[in-house]
């Protein structure tokens, strides 16, 4: 069930048009015979900002790896469903085919760390190498400075001559963003890109991503476990739990009026959203181990609204009239 959330761009048969940069439908991903992502639908329109939230093991990182052809590196593979990037079916694409899209159509900013940059090579040389990959005749010096300017790097000349360890965490993350946008991608995936940073730095990197999206007309997929980060920087949010998308809705609405009990639980557990002195009404228990799912709704064991019907089968993500979607068979009858 590929369901495009690009209301205007969707064709009569539900097939997305070119306004969709990335789309996955009914996607299942397995590692070593264990299904870790099941029946995920997600569509990202051109220049749209989408958040993907979920706790550890919910499958959000694996899902975004499928959008950039990097499942093989972790021994994962698509077992059903499909992945389309800019209209091309990439479900069983080779690495050679992915290389044509990676960087230019879809690009990834990984979690802030030293690992994303080569510690032995100066930042300038790393930028030049990436720039030449996309345009062999480019003036790498000028383009490097242009990219550093775009990511609002201070003292760009010094940064080009610096080794990664000589930069602060925030500057390294800006350098990684510069590398990621060097090929002018249509979709930038930021996978926990601000997670390890201090709050003030995190905010400035988020603002940078938001501004770049507007300036370069990119779509942004912001993957984070942090509801606050996602809420403020995205148009629409998909919430993942235990390898499935349980709810998908406008960022302005989803945390104020959640429709899935898990989203409601997350909101009630977030100290930023609960007045001081009130209990956090924690979700009980732990999330299931990836791959060790129950047959029915995977949230049912922790859900206060569970009934027999919940254990029958994995609830599909149902799109409501307003375009928001929820995967809960009791969504209509419960008030959260």
């Amino acid at each position, binding site marked *: 069930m590929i369901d495009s959330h690009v209301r205007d761009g969707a064709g009569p048969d539900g097939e997305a048009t070119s306004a969709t940069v990335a789309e996955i439908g009914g996607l299942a991903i397995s590692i070593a015979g264990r299904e870790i992502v099941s029946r995920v639908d997600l569509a990202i329109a051109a220049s749209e*900002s989408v958040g993907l939230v979920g*706790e*550890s093991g919910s499958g959000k990182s694996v899902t975004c790896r499928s959008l950039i052809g990097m499942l093989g590196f972790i021994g994962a593979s698509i077992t059903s469903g499909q992945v389309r990037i800019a209209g091309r079916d990439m479900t069983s694409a080779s690495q050679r085919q992915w290389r044509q899209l990676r960087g230019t159509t879809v690009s990834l900013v990984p979690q802030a760390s030293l690992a994303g940059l080569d510690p032995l090579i100066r930042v300038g040389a790393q930028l030049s190498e990436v720039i030449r990959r996309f345009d062999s005749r480019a003036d790498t010096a000028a383009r490097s400075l242009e990219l550093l300017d775009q990511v*609002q790097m*201070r003292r760009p000349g010094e940064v080009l001559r610096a080794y990664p360890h000589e930069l*602060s*965490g*925030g*500057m390294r993350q800006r350098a990684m963003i510069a590398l990621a946008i060097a090929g002018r991608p249509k979709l930038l995936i930021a996978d926990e890109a601000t997670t390890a*940073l*201090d*709050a*003030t*730095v*995190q*905010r*400035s*990197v*988020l*603002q*940078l991503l*938001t*501004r770049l999206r*507007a300036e370069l007309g990119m779509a942004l997929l912001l993957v984070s*476990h942090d*509801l*606050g*980060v996602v*809420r*403020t*920087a*995205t*148009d629409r949010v998909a919430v993942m739990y235990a390898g499935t998308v349980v709810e998908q809705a406008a960022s302005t609405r989803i945390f104020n009026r959640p429709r899935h009990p898990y989203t409601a*639980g*997350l909101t*009630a*557990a*977030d*100290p*930023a959203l*609960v007045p*001081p002195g009130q*209990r*956090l*009404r*924690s*979700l*009980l228990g*732990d*999330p299931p181990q990836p791959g060790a799912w129950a047959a029915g709704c995977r949230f049912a064991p922790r859900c206060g609204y569970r009934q027999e019907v919940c254990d029958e089968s994995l609830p599909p993500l149902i799109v409501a009239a307003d375009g928001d979607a929820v995967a809960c068979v009791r969504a209509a009858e419960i008030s959260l």
Partner: protein
Amino acid sequence: MTRASRPAGLASEVLVAADAVSLGYGRTIVVRDVSLHIRPGTATGIAGESGSGKSTLAKALVGDLTPMAGRVTVNGRSWSDVHRRDPERRRVQMIFQDPYSALNPRMTARQAISETLTVVCGVPRAEAGQRAGELLTRAGLSGAAIDARPHRLSGGQRQRVVIARAIACEPDLLIADEPTSSLDVSIQAQILDLLVDLREERGLALVLVSHDLAVLRHMTDTCLIMRDGNVVERGPTERVLSQPQHEYTRTLVAAHQGEETSVGSHHGAEEDT
């Protein structure tokens, strides 16, 4: 509330007092001239970003770091006079962000707590196993998890073991350094609720070190905001976070609220260098 300058007559009420302490490693000063008095049953937050000195201050409060200047006292005695086996040691316990590294991988949760009960708290070995089970149950562990080794436990379960161990000898003060930073939101909530319950039922004082202002606001009565080793602002948590006086606190609060980050906003107010 926790100012250094208070009448000497009230000193007996203070569990742990840091007076004009400067702290550091080698020749590097990490915390400058900070005073902080912790009273029974209170909840004090220490906030700041990486390198602000908040964890270093916490280490000194628990007696793990000798001040370069000033002194830290527990019940009026300097930590340097309190020996390892001294019962005073047990009055202050500390837990950390990474519960895995704090646990012996070869011991089950029950064995770890039993060990603490017999070696540190002087509980007879015959009783220790059962008491350990009760403590772990109180901390929210159940069933097979009680007799599992750390690698079989989730991050949240491990932090529960660490908390059970910290409360085993009935301390008066628990110092928690980013206790939930490596945990998911729903698990963080469980651990925070557990800490609130334990405070209520045991009259435990809490010092919570956190970079997360929302957690601090939720959990503490008073707080200190640290930057580059200095306390830039202190007071009732609610006031400090709703009406910050210091410019840095305002920056920090704004970064956490993140409202300005909303779609379509522009350049960051502060730069990271």
